[in-house]
């Protein structure tokens, strides 16, 4: 149990060997939100996007193939669970793995989009997500080398983690989630299917919230 004045009281911990996921007031709130969004992605039907032909009063509805929806839905749910893992895990390396999983499922969600523009943006995003694994895992490696442990429980409040590792961790998550590099994400969101593309942004925001907490705690 660590009681830091950052994220509220510790509620519950789940020992999986050396990886101990924990619920604090903060992460429990985030986890509740993730669960709500997983439910929405699992059971909601997608929007049917309308296109307006400008200059006239005509509009048409884009058609959605059943198979594409199924794949996006599956990946959105996978993305939700990856986010849940990233929010709850108590180990830095485990967190980086979940972050990478979020990155790859994000691309998977829009993989079935037919729009060239969206796919181009997703391609750029994929490249960045690949580059981002270097600072991400690099941060975990530096933390292990300089402190001798990866557990957030042990690291909490010690202040032993060098600034370099923290910066690289944030940079890595930024790359996986493209949170502030706004443009890649915005173009991807033009793809249709509301609950699924919503998951892309949702996961990256939660990753960002979680990494904020980790960086403040360790």
């Amino acid at each position, binding site marked *: 149990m660590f009681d830091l004045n950052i994220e509220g009281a510790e509620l519950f911990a789940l*020992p999986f060997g050396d990886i101990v996921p924990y619920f604090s007031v903060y992460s429990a709130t985030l986890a509740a939100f993730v669960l709500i969004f997983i439910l929405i992605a699992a059971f909601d039907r997608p929007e049917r996007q309308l296109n307006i032909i400008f200059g006239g009063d005509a509009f048409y509805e884009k058609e959605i193939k059943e198979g594409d929806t199924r794949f996006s839905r599956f990946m959105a749910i996978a993305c939700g669970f990856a986010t849940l893992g990233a929010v709850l895990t108590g180990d830095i390396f*485990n967190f980086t793995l979940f972050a990478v999983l979020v990155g790859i499922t994000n691309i998977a969600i829009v993989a079935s989009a037919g729009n060239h523009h969206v796919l181009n*943006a997703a391609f750029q995003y994929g490249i960045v997500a690949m580059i981002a694994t*270097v600072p991400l895992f690099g941060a975990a490696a530096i933390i292990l080398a300089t402190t*001798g*442990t990866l557990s957030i429980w042990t690291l909490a409040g010690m202040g032993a983690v060098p600034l370099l590792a923290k910066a690289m961790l944030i940079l890595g998550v930024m790359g996986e989630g493209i949170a502030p590099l706004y443009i890649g994400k915005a173009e991807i969101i033009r793809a249709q299917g509301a609950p699924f593309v919503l998951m892309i942004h949702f996961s990256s925001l939660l990753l960002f919230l979680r990494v904020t907490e980790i960086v403040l705690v360790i």
Partner: protein
Amino acid sequence: MIIRKLSGILSNFTNLSRVYAVMVIIVVIAGIASIPSLDYQGDRLYPKTIDRDSPLDPYDRGGIPFESTVVLAEYPENSPYLGYITAYLTPLSLALAAATPHMGTTIVAHPGGIIDEILYATRGLDTVVETTILFVGFAVAAHLFRRREDE
């Protein structure tokens, strides 16, 4: 105006990887400058001495088969069977190990050989996530391939 220029660069998504690379380079250069101030702490988690003469060469963590061995974990209280898995060899693998010093990897890989305890027992969630990443990668590739077939 500089803001106009900056937003012009940032609003084009083909610059995305370039912008990100610049940020990584800045952090890495600042990081290289700070390396002398970091010190190595190798004694805390998962220490390992490599015994080059052992028949199980790179995988040997010591210990007697069917008994336990000394393995360090962050939370030993969460892994009650710590040390038993690494020392686990079936009679066949035991015979192999005694017969030849050149079958290290083979012995480890076959059923009843050593399971890397650190990876599979104490950090089991990591292995699950790693395989999931691979599976998702395969799923995306398969989906894209099949989609091209449909059209």
